[in-house]
């Protein structure tokens, strides 16, 4: 139930945001975090709970960097 989905803000009206999830747009409440149009955000149960780093491609790199020193 703690599922949260990344999308991008395409419209902002006070604390009401329109978030695009690969073509589907959904209204989301933006009162829990400072956001602007164009931000990549995580939406949970109709609320934006966090902004995310912008570049998806970097995420994988970062993930492997974190475990670089680990051997099993």
């Amino acid at each position: 139930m703690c599922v949260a989905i990344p999308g991008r803000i395409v419209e902002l009206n006070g604390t009401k945001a329109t978030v695009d999830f690969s073509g589907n747009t959904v209204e989301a409440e933006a009162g829990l975090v400072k956001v602007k149009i164009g931000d990549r955000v995580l939406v949970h149960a109709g609320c934006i709970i966090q902004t995310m780093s912008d570049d998806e491609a970097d995420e994988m790199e970062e993930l492997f960097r974190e475990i670089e020193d680990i051997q099993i």
Partner: protein
Amino acid sequence: MNKLELIKEKLKDYDGEELRFMEVCGTHTAAISENGIHGMISPKIHLISGPGCPVCVTVTAVIDRLTELSLTENTTVLTFGDLIRVRGSKMSLADARAMGGRVEMLYSPMDAVKMAAKNPDRNYVFAAIGFETTTPVYAMVLKEIIAQDVHNLKLLTSLKTMPEVIRWVCKNTDNIDGFLAPGHVSVITGSDLFKQLSEETGLPFVVAGFDGPGLLAAVYALCGMRDKPGLKNVYKSAVSENGNESAREAVEEFFEPCDASWRGMGMIPGSGMRLKEKYGEYDAGSYGLDEDHMPPGCSCARVLTGEISPEECPLFGKKCTPEDAHGACMVSTEGSCYNYYISGRKKR
């Protein structure tokens, strides 16, 4: 070979001591099944589901109160989908609806405010269950209720927090070698919370995302960090050390910590959140809902704590299936039994 392939190979070939890692988050349980992670790793690495599916840990007294409300004149119970089919001591919300009770499913609790504002003569109760991820959403609901001066929407809260139940699991089991920290709880709490828990319990924690590579990287990290305290965050795109402070402030405005009852585990001090007294008018009678009647023969309690694997329950796949679920763990799409059933995930 790229890094992901290398990790996959090492996890598949792992031949060291047997390792048991617990994912405390129900969304991780579902993601592990969907991505077939259990089939990609060595049989010596065991992934165990923990008590992090909010629907599964809700005690029957809460369901009973909700069914009673749904059958009360002029009252509609609003809820997330999965909760509808969970049986209370007598019936589920779906049963109550079949008897004429009013129950509606919503995607977002924010929609409850719109619904209540549109129908001022009807009373609405939102079944406010969830962990640290969802409580800020309820805080936003309350802000909106107050801003719009809505008086016909209340919350029935059964809100839980992770730290105390993780401590409880550590105290009551001694065979866990590390934890996959709940990713979207960490978005709110920050990864530092798990650093603290790691030092206390002496076990490694890895904050993980929900896609295949993220989950594999997290399991790989746990294998390398086994038996020693330590924290790694492989979900940095969403989880910072401090988390979302404004979400936590919103929660603090409306809620305070309380003791909470967990299905099959009983009362765990300081493991829940409840509305502060000054917002009591928005509470639909959440205090004291502690009774828990497990369906006869159901082993949910032992499944939720990782003591047994779902298929070790005598009813699993026989008397208890997703179509005719006995316990909550088979109802929820994040439940351990449901996920073991649909994906054939096995204890090996």
